[in-house]
């Protein structure tokens, strides 16, 4: 189960809507207990895919390395990643699946031409099974106590 505060999902959707020419991407950060992930905040990063950025994204490895180094020993973890699909579906593409890691959440946001959005989170428990939709719950209209705590730690 992926818990996402209302303001965080709004932030992600706004970032995805802001670019209609390239997929956008970022990292979901928060607390991870068993199969329960609670997003506290996001780190929005540049899509460094070299070509076909309208259908591809890549997060710079060094960004992830730096984040892992920063989070080492803290209560926060990288929980997964979000990216947008332009005028497409919220279903992971072949390439999304081929490159996916187990356990992380992959949140996909679709923005269509009319400006409407939809999103779904995917998780791969095992490579043999492939991606399955992850239960996702948007919580509160306000930031949760946990996400406020997380901010204080920064």
């Amino acid at each position, binding site marked *: 189960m992926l818990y996402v505060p209302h303001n965080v999902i709004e932030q992600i959707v706004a970032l995805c809507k802001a670019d209609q020419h390239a997929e956008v991407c970022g990292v979901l950060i928060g607390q991870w207990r068993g199969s329960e992930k609670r997003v506290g905040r996001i780190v929005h990063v540049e899509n460094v895919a070299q070509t076909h950025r309208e259908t591809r994204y890549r997060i710079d490895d*060094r960004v992830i*390395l730096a984040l892992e180094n920063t989070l080492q020993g803290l209560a926060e973890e990288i*929980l997964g990643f979000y990216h947008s699909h332009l005028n497409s579906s919220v279903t992971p593409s072949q390439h999304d699946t081929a490159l996916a890691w187990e356990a992380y959440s992959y949140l996909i946001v679709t923005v269509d031409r009319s400006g409407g959005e939809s999103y779904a989170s995917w998780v791969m428990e095992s490579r043999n099974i492939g991606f399955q939709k992850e239960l996702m719950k948007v919580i509160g209209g306000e930031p949760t106590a946990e996400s406020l705590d997380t901010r204080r730690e920064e």
Partner: protein
Amino acid sequence: MSITVRIPQPLRKLTNGLSEVSSSGQTAKELLGNLDQQYAGLKERLCDETGALRRFVNIYVNDEDIRFLQDLDTPLKDGDLVSIVPAIAGGVEENDPKNITRKIYLTFPHKQIQEPIVWRLAKKFDVITNIRGASVSEEIGLMALELKGGTTDIERAISYLKELGVKVEPIEKDVIE
């Protein structure tokens, strides 16, 4: 000799939940072998059957990607920090079939009959359009259309048609040429 290895979350179920473990090895390859002795199954997650690093795995020694050093033969020394860093990417597969032909029936709504939709389709998306049959009256337009191109381009072209209110029905399955 001691080398610190940072483990990303998805692999911690193999390291008893540890985010950082100690191991040893003269090279990255040796280190992975030793890690696998300590934490069974770890190497298989990182390397394929040929022993090469999987596409979605990066290994950094201190701040350098081993792919830009000597890959798995990269030498290691006491005190090195080795990080297993997930490669995060997605999108259209490089080897997506590029030459698919899809035949579809289109039913145009009344308001779209006058519009040059097929022309727009070819201009907007990287697809080759070939009209195989059409019947247009003032009330309704029917067309059998063949689309050639990459899977994604064809998918996008079809989504676009649907967005315009055109009814799209497949004639037959994809033919990969």
